[in-house]
C-alpha cells in the first residue's frame, strides 16, 4: 500500500523509524508545544491561529476546528477532557491507522496543545479494537512522550499538567459517533446520546469535553509551528491544509495520500496509478461509505475539498475515496453497503434499528433476482423515513448511499428487477 508523504501529517515518513520520538523531534516535533509553554501563549491566541488555518474536522463532518474549540467553556471549574476519536470505522477509511502508526507523536503533541488550550488535564485517545498493533504502538509512543516529560505533571517545567490515555474499543462502528464513544469510554454500552446537551457542556463523565478526529489533532502541531496562515495556504480558502485521502477500490496504487485540499480528483486518481487494468472509471464514493456515490464523470470535474464535493451532491467526509470501475454492479455494491449499516446500527432508535434491516433485505432481494417493481420507490421512501429522524447520524449514513445509488444508477436497479440479473458483467467489489 502506498503512503504519500506530506508536510503536515506524514512529515516524518522519509526518515528512518518515523514513529520514534527522536525522529519526530528532528523534524521539528514538540517545538510548538515548547514554544507555547515557554511563552505562556494564551488559549485565545491558539484558537485564533487554528481559526486562521481554516482547519476543518477530518472525521467526516468538516466542522471548523477553531470554532469547535471556542465552544468549550474553558473557565468552567473542575475537570474537562479532550478526546481523540481514532475509532476509524467508516468503510474505505484507513488514514488514522497510518497516522498513529507512522507519526503518533504528531497526534500526541496535538492533543497536549488541545488540552492546554481547552483547559483539560486529561485526554483519551479512543482506538477501535481491530487494530491492536496500532494501539500498542500508541501505548509505546505515549510512554516515550511521558518519559521525555511531554506528558505528566508540570510539562517541560511549566505549571501545565496533562496526561493522555489510549483506550481501545471492541470494534463497533457506532462508537465512532462521538457520544457513543464517550459512553464506551465510561464503560457503558456504546450508544449515542441525545443532543442537546452537547459534549462541550456535558461530555465525558458529564464534564465539558471536546472531541476531535486523529488527523485533525495531528494537524495542530504544524499549525502552531508554521502558523495558521501557512497551513491555510497549503489548501484553499475555507479548506485549509493538506488532507490524507484513503484511496481504495479499483486503482493501481491504493493507499493514503497526503495532498493539499483542493487538489483535482483527476490528479489524485493519477497519483493512485489510475484505474486498474486500464478500465474505465464508473463511480466514486468520495468520502467513505456514508457519502452518496457520484458518477465518474462528475467526480472528474471535482476538486478534493469540502465545498466542491458538497456542490456535486456528496460529502468529502473522512476523505475515503472508493473508486469503482465499469465492472461494478451497483446493486451488489449497495447490498454490501446496506449490510454494513444493518449490522452496525446500535438498535437504540426506531428508524435506524428497523429501517436498516429493511433496506438491506430489499436490496438483497433485488440483487438475488427477487426484486419487485415497487421496490425502488419503497427503498427511496424507507431511506427518506430514516434520514433526519434518528438520534445520531448513523441513520443518515445508512440512508445516503441508498439515495445516492438510486439517484444516479436507478436504471441498473430497474434492470435487475426486470431481468433478474446484472446489467454489468463480472461484478467485483
Amino acid at each position: 500500500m502506498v503512503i504519500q508523504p506530506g508536510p503536515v501529517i506524514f512529515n516524518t515518513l522519509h526518515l528512518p523509524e518515523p514513529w520514534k520520538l527522536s525522529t519526530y523531534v528532528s523534524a521539528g516535533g514538540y517545538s510548538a508545544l515548547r514554544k507555547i509553554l515557554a511563552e505562556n501563549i494564551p488559549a485565545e491566541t491558539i484558537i485564533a491561529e487554528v481559526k486562521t488555518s481554516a482547519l476543518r474536522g477530518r472525521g467526516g463532518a468538516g466542522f471548523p476546528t477553531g470554532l469547535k474549540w471556542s465552544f468549550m467553556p474553558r473557565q468552567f471549574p473542575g475537570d474537562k477532557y479532550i478526546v481523540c476519536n481514532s475509532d476509524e470505522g467508516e468503510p474505505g477509511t484507513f488514514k488514522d491507522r497510518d497516522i498513529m502508526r507512522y507519526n503518533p507523536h504528531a497526534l500526541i503533541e496535538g492533543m497536549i496543545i488541545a488540552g492546554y488550550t481547552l483547559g483539560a488535564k486529561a485526554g483519551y485517545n479512543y482506538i477501535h479494537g481491530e487494530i491492536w498493533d496500532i494501539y500498542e504502538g500508541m501505548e509505546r509512543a505515549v510512554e516515550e512522550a511521558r518519559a521525555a516529560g511531554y506528558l505528566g505533571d508540570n510539562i517541560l517545567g511549566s505549571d501545565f499538567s496533562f496526561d493522555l490515555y489510549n483506550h481501545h474499543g471492541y470494534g463497533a462502528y457506532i462508537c465512532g459517533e462521538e457520544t457513543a464513544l464517550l459512553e464506551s469510554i465510561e464503560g457503558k454500552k456504546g450508544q449515542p446520546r441525545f443532543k442537546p446537551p452537547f459534549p462541550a457542556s456535558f461530555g465525558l463523565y458529564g464534564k465539558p469535553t471536546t472531541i476531535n478526529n486523529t488527523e485533525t489533532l495531528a494537524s495542530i502541531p504544524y499549525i502552531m509551528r508554521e502558523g495558521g496562515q501557512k497551513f491555510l495556504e497549503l489548501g484553499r480558502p475555507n479548506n485549509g491544509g493538506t488532507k490524507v485521502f484513503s484511496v481504495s477500490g479499483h486503482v493501481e496504487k491504493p493507499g493514503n495520500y497526503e495532498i493539499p485540499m483542493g487538489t483535482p480528483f483527476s490528479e489524485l486518481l493519477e497519483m493512485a496509478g489510475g484505474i486498474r487494468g486500464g478500465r474505465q472509471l464508473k463511480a466514486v464514493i468520495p468520502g467513505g461509505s456514508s457519502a452518496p456515490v457520484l458518477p465518474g464523470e462528475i467526480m472528474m470535474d471535482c476538486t478534493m475539498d469540502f465545498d466542491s464535493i458538497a456542490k456535486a451532491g456528496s460529502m468529502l467526509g473522512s476523505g475515503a475515496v472508493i473508486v469503482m470501475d465499469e465492472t461494478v454492479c451497483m446493486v451488489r455494491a449497495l447490498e454490501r453497503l446496506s449490510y454494513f449499516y444493518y449490522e452496525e446500527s446500535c438498535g437504540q432508535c426506531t428508524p435506524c434499528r428497523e429501517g436498516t434491516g429493511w433496506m438491506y433485505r430489499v436490496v438483497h432481494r433485488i440483487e438475488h433476482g427477487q426484486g419487485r417493481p415497487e421496490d425502488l420507490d419503497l427503498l427511496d421512501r424507507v431511506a427518506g423515513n430514516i434520514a433526519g429522524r434518528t438520534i445520531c447520524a448513523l441513520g443518515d449514513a445508512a440512508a445516503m448511499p441508498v439515495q445516492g445509488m438510486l439517484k444516479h444508477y436507478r436504471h441498473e436497479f430497474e434492470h435487475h428487477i426486470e431481468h433478474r440479473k446484472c446489467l454489468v458483467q463480472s461484478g467485483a467489489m
Partner: protein
Amino acid sequence: MALNIEIDGQQIEVEPGTTVMDAAHKLGIYIPHFCYHKKLSIAANCRMCLVQVEKAPKPLPACATPVSDGMKVMTRSDYAIQAQKGVMEFLLINHPLDCPICDQGGECQLQDLAVGYGGSRSNYAEPKRVVTEKNLGPLIATDMTRCIHCTRCVRFGQEIAGIMEMGQAFRGEHAEIMPFIDKTIDSELSGNIIDLCPVGALTSKPFRYAARAWELSRRKGVSPHDSLGSNLQIQVKNGRVMRVLPLENEDINECWLSDRDRFSYEGLNSEDRLTKPMIRKDGAWVEADWQEALSYVASRLREIQVRHGADQIGALAAPTQTTEELYLLQKLMRGLGCGNIDHRLRQSDFRLDDKAHGAFWLGMPVAALNKLDRFLIVGSTLRKDHPLLALRLRQAVRHGAGMNLINPVVEDYLCKVANRSIVSPDGMVNALAGLVRALAEAKGERIPTMASGAEVTPEIKAIAESMIGGERKGIFLGNLAQHHPRYAEMQTLAQEAAMLAGATLGVLGDAGNALGAVVAGAIPGRGALGSRGMAGMNAAQMIASPRKAYVLLGAEAEYDCFDPVAALAALKQAEFVVAMSSYKHAAVDYADVLLPIAPFTETSGTFINAEGRVQSFHGAVKPMGETRPAWKVLRVLGNLLNLPGFDQDSSEAVRDEALGQDAQARVQQFLNTRIDPVSVSLASTSKIERIGEVPIYQTDAIVRRAASLQRTADAAPPMAKASGMLLEKLGIQGGGMAIIRQGEVSVVIRIDRDDCLPANCVRLPGAHAVTVSLGPLFGELTVERA
C-alpha cells in the same frame, strides 16, 4: 424568564427547560409517544413524537426538544404526521401483530396509536424478527418479540427501582431487552414494568389470559399491606378480583405499586378462603348458618363473662382490618366490660402506652420524604417493609440527601448510604444514646442524663455530624425498632436526638392500618381518637397471662404475634376462641367458632396511613360465599349481646361515629409522636440475640396466600445467618445445619455466614412456616451445631 411558544396555533408561556412535550401537555395537545414517561429520564429513542418545528431542518422529538423563545411547533401538520407515520411503519414491521392472542390487547399503546398512524396493510414483505423468551420469574410474563425497545423497563430499573435488572443487549435489529443472563427480575417493585411496557412484551404472569381489559370493571381501593396505603385500581370480572393496578396518587404511591400491593390479590381468591361459619361440635367442625354461629358466640362470651369475669376475655386484632371493624371490636369488648384489646401483635414493649400524647405517625407527609436533606433510619428492613417509602427516600438521596442508618442488619439500599452504624438489636439503644451524646457535644449543649454514659463510636459521630447539617431532616423508627423489646427507650432517645438535630421524628408504621387501629381505640386504655377508654391488657399481657376466651379479628396468631409459640399456647388453653378470619388457618386447631369475614376488597371501610391520611373505600366485589364484612358481624354480635350503640346501618355510619364528620381534621389533630421519656438503661446483653424481621411476603394473611408472590426469590424460606466470627466461635460451618433454641423451643435450620451482621447476633426472620415454631422475634437464643 418565561418563554413563549406556539403549538398548533395555541400560545403558551413556559419556564426555560420545559420540553415541547410538556408544553403541549399543558395545552392539552396529545403528541403520540412510547418511550417518553413523565417519571423517567428522556430517551428519545422511539421517535414517535417527532413534530415539525419552524426553521428546524428536520422533524424533532417533542420529548427531548427544549422550548426556545418564539418557537413555533406543529404537531399535526402534514410534515409532522408523515414523520410520525414513518416511525409507526417501522415499529410495526417487526411487531408480530398478534393482538388477538396478546394480553395487552385493548390497553396497548401501540395498538391504539396504530389505529391513528398505521397503514391498513404492510409494505414489509420480509420475515419478521423473532426473539427468544426470557424468564423474568413468577410475576412478569414476556413476549419479547413484541418489544419495541422503548427502554422504559430499563430506565425504571436504573432510575426508580434503583437496580438495573433489565438492559439492552446486542445491536441493531438483533437488539434485545433482557435481564442479565439467566437472572430473574427480583426487585420488590418489579411489577411496575408491566404498566410501563407500552406493548405486550411484559405482561402480568398471574393475570395471563385471565380476562380482556374491556371486560373488567374498575373499582378504587386502598392497600392494607404496608403503612403507605397505596391507592389501587381493583379490576373485577364476574365478582372476582382479576387484577390490581396502581391508582395514581402523586401524594402517596405516585403511579407505582409495590409487588406486594399489586399481586397480593391472588390471596383473595385462595383455596384457603373460609366461606361459611363453622362451629366445633364435640371436637368436629360443622358448618353453621350465621344466626346459629353468632348466637353461639354471644352465649359463650356471655357465659365466660359471667362465670370468669369480663377480664378473662382477650381481643387480638390484625392491624390490617378496617378502622370501622377495629372500632366496633373495641366497642364490643368494652361493652362487655373488658378492656383487653390490642392490634399491636408484633410489638413487645408497651412502656409508652401511658407516655404517648397521640397516635405515632410519620411526622410529615409522605410526599415530603423525597425532599429531605438528611435522614436517619433506625431499625428497619426498609426496602422490604416499605417498598415505596424506600423509593421516595432513594429519590431524596439521588438529589443529594444524606442517608444514615442505625440498624442490626445491612440491606442493599440501592443508593448511597452516607453513614451506618450496624449494631446488635440491644446495641441500637446504646447507639442512639451515643447519637444523643454526640449531637449534644457537637452543638455544645449539656449532655442529657440519659446519654451521659453512652459511648460515641466513630460511626455514630459521623451520623451526628451528618444530622447536624441540612435543613429538612427526619429520624424514622422502622419495624425492627417498633417490635424491639426496648422500643420505648429507643423512641425516647430518638426523640431527644431529633430535638437536638432539629429533625422531625417519625414512626414508619408496621401495617396498613396500624395508625387507624390506634385512632379507632383498639388499644388498652384509649378509645377512639385518644378519648379515655377502659384500661386492660395489651397484646403481650393477654398472651403472657392466658385468658379463658379470645376474640380474634383477622389475626393469625401463629404468624402475626411477636412470640408465636406463646400465643398458640395461650389460645390452645382457652375455653373458648372465636376466630373471625377470611381464611381457614391454624385456628382450626384451637378455635371453637370460625366466622368468615370479608377481606379489604369485599367490604367498605377506612384505612389511615402513616401520614394520617384517612382513606375510605367501597367494596370492590361481593363477599365470597357466605362471607360477611366484619363490621356487620360485630354489629350483630353487639345486638345479640344486648349492648347499646350497635345500630349502625353502614360502615360510613360506623366511621362517622368513631371519627366524626370531619374525620381527616380530627385525625390530624390526634397525630403526635411526642412521648414522655422512659428511663434508659445503657447496660447491654452479652448473650446471642435474635434479629427477627418479618419477611416481605409474610406480613399478613392475604399476602401469605398470594401464590405468585410466594414463588419469588423474596419469599424463599428463610434461613439463619450469623457472622463468620460467631460461627467460628460456635464451631459451625457457614451453610451447615444448626439447632437454634429459644427457651423451651428450637428449630433445626441451615445457617449461613453474613459478615455484615453484628458479632453476637443471629438473623432469623419470623412469621414463616419454618420459623413460627420458635419464640419471640427478638431476644436471647442459643445456637449449636446440628
